[in-house]
């Protein structure tokens, strides 16, 4: 645990990507199995210790320290694990033990919810104080050390001189502590035959379009749908659905799993069939993203939900078919294969993302601008000869989102952020005016501003606070924020009756008096 805790601390404070890789490489080379495998799993967020939640830590801390002080500290620090690590008091503490990481994992994974606070408290008392933070982060999941799964894989590949693409390929088929992967990378073992398991292949992603235009001789255009990207994997013995991050979501969409009678790997957009929105060309319409949210993140699904929010998949691409890997083929050939596959799948659950016919880029631009469909996020441009490659490779795929909508709103409340933003008031609730001159909240945003603007906004909040409600500050209603958002929907949850999708601060309107900010009625006119 000591070596792991030191690695975590060093990673927290290391900014450079190469320096982070070097730290992980050193750790993986000198640490024995299975500890290094568990560390790798922790860095890539691949350990699920369901018994320990943030609330477990809070309960545990409150049994030893005044709950009010725990709550105030949490609001200040912005992270429960760090708060408890800092606030923890061990009576008559000695220097503490260095427990092997694998033993820590074994204890944590055997925990039930009821006993979790007591066992975890015992471990906190037992280990070295310097290791508390790493232990608590490990227990709650998400190390937050600025290491992406990709970076961890690069470090692994660097440590043992193997190809990162191969590591990427095998990664999701293997489970922590990855003994097979280490054996293969160090040349002491072979990779087993994985063809019988349905495992996740990394997605191909797109860059935002920054060029003024591309030639439609080289690129094909299709709609970018506003659902969630999913991968469907069918093997001889099992079928699975994965989200963009590689999390399995099969249980939330049993109808799709049931209908997906196919050996191979497909890429598509999961959406909910809805009212008169979306693509009517291929036998189906897409509901709003709000409808999809009713179905996301569920472990079990009721019959009513299945009836009210029927899901379907709009297919984008094929990675494998009948045991054959198609990823190296050009897009045109994969598309031809996909068309015949789509035709063979049940039409109520599957259709194919249609291509946009446009004679040239200017015409495409006009088509994009006129598409006011709520289920369309924008346009995808894919090179006709592009292979299917993991991650974002420059020049192959572009996303060309619709221009966002904007509104001028007045800041009403501010709250401290989490994590590295815990010292800043970085979450802002803003409102617009009713006809009666009342300001009603229409959304909350915590992004879109630069570091300089954040400092300015933080200072504004500190010097214009009227009231405090715990961590929330009510501010003087004098600052106008230009807010950008992808779309706006009717919502019963807010008094204004509106909910924005992905609102972010576009600009601080120092020049605009608060009284001239937008009216609620103006936003209602944008509702889709």
């Amino acid at each position, binding site marked *: 645990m000591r070596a792991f805790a030191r690695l975590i601390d060093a990673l927290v404070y290391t900014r450079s990507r190469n320096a982070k890789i070097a730290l992980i490489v050193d750790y993986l080379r000198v640490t024995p199995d299975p500890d290094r495998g568990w560390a790798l799993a922790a860095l890539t967020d691949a350990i699920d210790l369901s018994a320990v939640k943030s609330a477990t830590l809070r309960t545990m801390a409150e049994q030893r320290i005044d709950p009010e002080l725990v709550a105030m500290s949490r609001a*200040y*620090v912005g*992270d429960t694990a760090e708060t408890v690590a*800092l606030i923890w008091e061990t009576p008559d503490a000695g220097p503490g033990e260095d427990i092997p990481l694998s033993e820590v994992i074994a204890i944590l994974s055997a925990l039930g919810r009821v006993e979790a606070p007591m066992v975890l408290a015992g471990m906190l008392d037992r280990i070295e104080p310097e290791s508390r933070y790493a232990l608590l982060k490990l227990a709650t999941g998400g190390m937050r050390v600025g290491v992406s799964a990709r970076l961890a894989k690069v470090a692994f590949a660097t440590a043992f001189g193997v190809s990162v693409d191969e590591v990427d390929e095998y990664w999701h088929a293997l489970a922590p502590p990855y003994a097979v992967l280490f054996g293969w990378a160090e040349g002491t073992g072979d990779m087993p035959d994985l063809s019988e398991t349905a495992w996740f292949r990394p997605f191909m992603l797109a860059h935002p379009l920054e060029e003024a235009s591309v030639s439609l001789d080289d690129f094909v255009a299709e709609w970018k749908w506003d659902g969630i990207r999913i991968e469907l994997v069918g093997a001889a013995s099992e079928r699975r659905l994965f989200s963009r991050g590689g999390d399995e979501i099969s249980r939330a969409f049993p109808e799709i799993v049931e209908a997906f009678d196919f050996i191979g790997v497909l890429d598509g957009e999961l959406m909910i069939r809805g009212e008169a929105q979306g693509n009517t060309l291929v036998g189906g319409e897409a509901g709003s993203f709000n409808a999809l949210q009713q179905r996301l993140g569920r472990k079990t699904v009721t019959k009513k939900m299945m009836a009210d929010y029927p899901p379907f998949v709009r297919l984008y691409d094929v990675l494998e078919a009948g045991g054959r890997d198609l990823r190296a083929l050009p897009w045109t050939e994969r598309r031809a294969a996909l068309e015949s596959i789509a035709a063979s799948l049940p039409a109520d659950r599957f259709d194919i993302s249609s291509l946009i016919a446009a004679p040239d880029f200017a015409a495409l631009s006009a088509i994009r601008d006129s598409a006011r469909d709520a289920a369309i996020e924008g346009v995808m441009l894919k090179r006709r000869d592009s292979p299917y490659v993991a991650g974002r490779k420059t020049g192959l795929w572009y996303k060309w989102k619709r221009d966002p909508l904007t509104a001028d709103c007045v800041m009403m409340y501010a709250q401290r952020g989490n994590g590295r933003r*815990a*010292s800043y008031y970085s979450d802002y609730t803003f409102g617009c005016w009713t006809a009666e001159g009342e300001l009603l909240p229409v959304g909350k945003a915590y992004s879109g501003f630069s570091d300089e603007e954040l400092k300015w906004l933080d200072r504004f909040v500190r010097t214009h606070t009227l009231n405090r409600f715990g961590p929330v500050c009510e501010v003087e209603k004098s600052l106008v924020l230009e807010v950008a958002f992808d779309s706006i929907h009717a919502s019963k949850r807010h008094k204004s009756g509106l909910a924005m999708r992905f609102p972010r601060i576009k600009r601080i309107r120092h020049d605009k008096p608060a009284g001239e900010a937008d009216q609620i009625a103006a936003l209602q006119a944008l509702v889709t």
Partner: protein
Amino acid sequence: MAADGPSSHWIAADRTGIHVRPADLWIDPSVPRAGALVTHGHADHARGGHGETIATRETLAIMGLRYGTSAGMPLAYGESIERGGVRISLHPAGHVLGSAQILLEHGGERVVVTGDYKRRPDPTCAPFELVPCDIFVTEATFGLPVFRHPPIEQEIAKLLNARAANPDRCVLVGAYALGKAQRVIAELRRASHADPIYLHGALEKMCRLYEELGVDLGDLRLVGETEKEDLRGRIILCPPSALTDRWSRRLPDPITAMASGWMRMRQRARARQVELPLIISDHADWDELTQTIAALRPAETWVTHGAEEALVHWCTSRQMRARALAVAGYEDEDD
């Protein structure tokens, strides 16, 4: 008496400072006043432009350096004066050179205003003294139990180890120009680091003033007068704002360090892009704040700038009277 509530008490507070009403003097006012009592020289407590400033000789010298002010009435620790029936005396606060707690005696009641203070030994200033009182007006910059400063020796060792492990780089330490910088230097000297220490130009005058006032800081040199190659393996001090400034680009591959009590929070250190956090504070930590109140057992504790709520809660949950004073505008981020 205090029991009558704050509005009728002879000491009042608003967002601009603490008002000693019978004497018409303001403590650490943030706006110009005819008469000011200044606890110490940090810019958020000591502002220029007052009619008369009463403070320690050292604090007046620091204000003179910063604002060019000369009007001031020096008061030594333990010496007292009387204004409007209020007896006023200054007592060491252990925060920075010249820092003082202010003892006010009026109508048989003793009020101590700490300004900023710490209880740990500091080679650059006189140690904090416990001054018995009825009302204790305390700071609360680190008034949460997550703040427990480690021994400074441990942090200085971290700094020296980072330097020794990276002979081709330099260690750039962000440290507040008044107090923190000189304390870090003095502690390095105490740890037998006799090499020259290099300064950002903004720290030079204050270090010289400390030396004039009798604090020995050893061999100090300016970065601006040194070749880049000669800075390898050196310890360099700069104001926190210069850490990520263009100025630091002239340095040989600096390891960015910061000496501050806030560095105890990992995510805070990370947000400031600090690679080597040094938890060195000139403020009392949670244990010092609570132990000081417990030792004094004042009839009432008033809590100013910082995390007031937690310290008030700590007092009241122990049947000690306490409340928050609404003095605003102190800058605490770099301390």
